[in-house]
């Protein structure tokens, strides 16, 4: 997708190089969009007991995997052909790392879909669905925002995504306690609640992956690696 920002940067003298970078970004965002949709569908399939949708999500993961392979190949070729430097180098390296996170999110969606099928087969109660919907939409938004930060090269937005992660963790802990209570109240709930726990765990992981994407966006924009760095230090890097 043609991006206003690329024209504002100024084109490469080599128009082909320009196109190659644009192509890489476009494909990455396509993969991002696909994976976002997978998560949304997986959560929907679970909370609506929609087994058809769940099967679609499981099948759809093959497409996600193939995109990871294609994007990596494209990135390697850019490095081989162009020896990119500075911002272009950071872009290519960041994309190579971020596709891993996207592919994992795809896997989490597949897991959730599989659990949706299991829960649907076990009977129709909505135990835990509120929590799943809530955390599901929270991490879905985080993922969306991290990809948006990539498009707009917005380090501040990326930082906001990273700060959300703490809230997701708190919500996850609260949900886990609730489920524990259900399990203690009635042991017949245990199987169900365990499945819900796995779903919540998968969603919590999606939040972590969104954070990883955000960290890579900050690396691309600011040129500093903020992984494993305390929040105050990251704030300083972004505020620079």
């Amino acid at each position, binding site marked *: 997708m043609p991006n206003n920002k690329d024209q504002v940067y*100024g*084109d490469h*003298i080599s128009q082909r190089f320009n196109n190659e970078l644009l192509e890489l970004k476009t494909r990455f965002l396509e993969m991002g969009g696909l994976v976002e949709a997978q998560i949304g569908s997986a959560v929907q399939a679970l909370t609506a007991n929609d087994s058809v949708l769940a099967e679609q999500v499981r099948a759809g993961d093959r497409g996600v995997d193939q995109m990871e392979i294609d994007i990596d190949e494209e990135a390697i070729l850019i490095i081989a052909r162009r020896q*990119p*430097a*500075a911002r272009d*180098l*950071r872009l290519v390296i960041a994309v190579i790392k971020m596709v891993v996170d996207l592919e994992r999110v795809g896997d989490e969606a597949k897991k959730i879909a599989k659990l949706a099928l299991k829960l649907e087969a076990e009977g129709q109660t909505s135990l835990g669905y509120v929590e799943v919907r809530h955390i599901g939409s929270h991490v879905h938004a985080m993922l969306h925002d991290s990809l948006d930060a990539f498009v707009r090269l917005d380090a501040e937005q990326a930082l906001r995504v990273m700060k959300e992660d703490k809230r997701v963790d708190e919500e996850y802990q609260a949900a886990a306690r609730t489920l524990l209570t259900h399990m203690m109240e009635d042991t017949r709930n245990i199987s169900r609640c365990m499945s819900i726990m796995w779903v919540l765990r998968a969603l919590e992981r999606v939040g972590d992956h969104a954070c990883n994407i955000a960290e890579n966006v900050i690396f691309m924009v600011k040129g500093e690696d903020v992984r494993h760095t305390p929040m105050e230090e990251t704030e300083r890097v972004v505020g620079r």
Partner: protein
Amino acid sequence: MNTMSPSISAEAEMRGKGASIPVPEHKRKDSLMEDKPEDTVIEEGKTVGKPFTDNPKFKLRNVDVSYGADRAIKNISLDIGRNEVIAFIGPSGCGKSTFLRCLNRMNDSIDICRVKGTLELDDQNIYDAKRDVVELRARVGMVFQKPNPFPKSIYDNVAYGPRIHGLANRKSELDDIVENSLRKAGLWNEAKDRLDAMATGMSGGQQQRLCIARAIAVSPEVILMDEPCSALDPIATARVEELIAEMSESYTIVIVTHSMQQAARVSNRTAYFHMGHLVEVNETDTVFTSPQHPLTESYITGRFG
């Protein structure tokens, strides 16, 4: 879509007036770097990064070079560190070769060229009227873009400098100097059995290494290299680059190059020149991963040349 053309002519117009050069409109709006206005403009005499070092070999302050009315180097200040390899990069006509030639006064041979400012080698002014230019050029040797062996034997090419400077009293001493120089230049094994053969019969890569041996033979402290590999094939280039890495233990090396990858491979520090200004000097790794100035980034990523 490409808005570069109007800005380039605006740049050319500004150039004659010696004014600061604004970064073209389309770049100024959006930058991956801190958007302070002064960062997007080159102020004369202002260099981003770390142009100065401790205990420098060369100390250059407020250097101005003009060819007649044309100001080619504008108020540049820079330190060149001992035993470092520093690369000068920049688009054609930016002044990097002119600046290089100041370091051993090769610009003296150009009539209309005027050099102003302070240029010191080991704290001594090299433009002092009392300085012996020949002695300076032995201390600060130069290797040129096109290999230029003398039309003499391999031996005589290397022995020429030491003979003129009286560096050897006996033939055996001269033999030693020739052998050591050829060894250091990585040419001994190929040359030892034909030292009397004409140098011009060697391949381009060998000739260039001979020129390096020739420069080394007079025991310089600094070696200046003006695009030393542009006439060489990739294998010869790789060998010369290996040589530069070995030589930097004993000499200070300044290399002008058009190849970004070469600068990234061989140098410790990189200096980016732009239309007579020294825009940025930084550790090479920094310049090629996160350059500070938008112009440096534009150049090394190929967004303009």
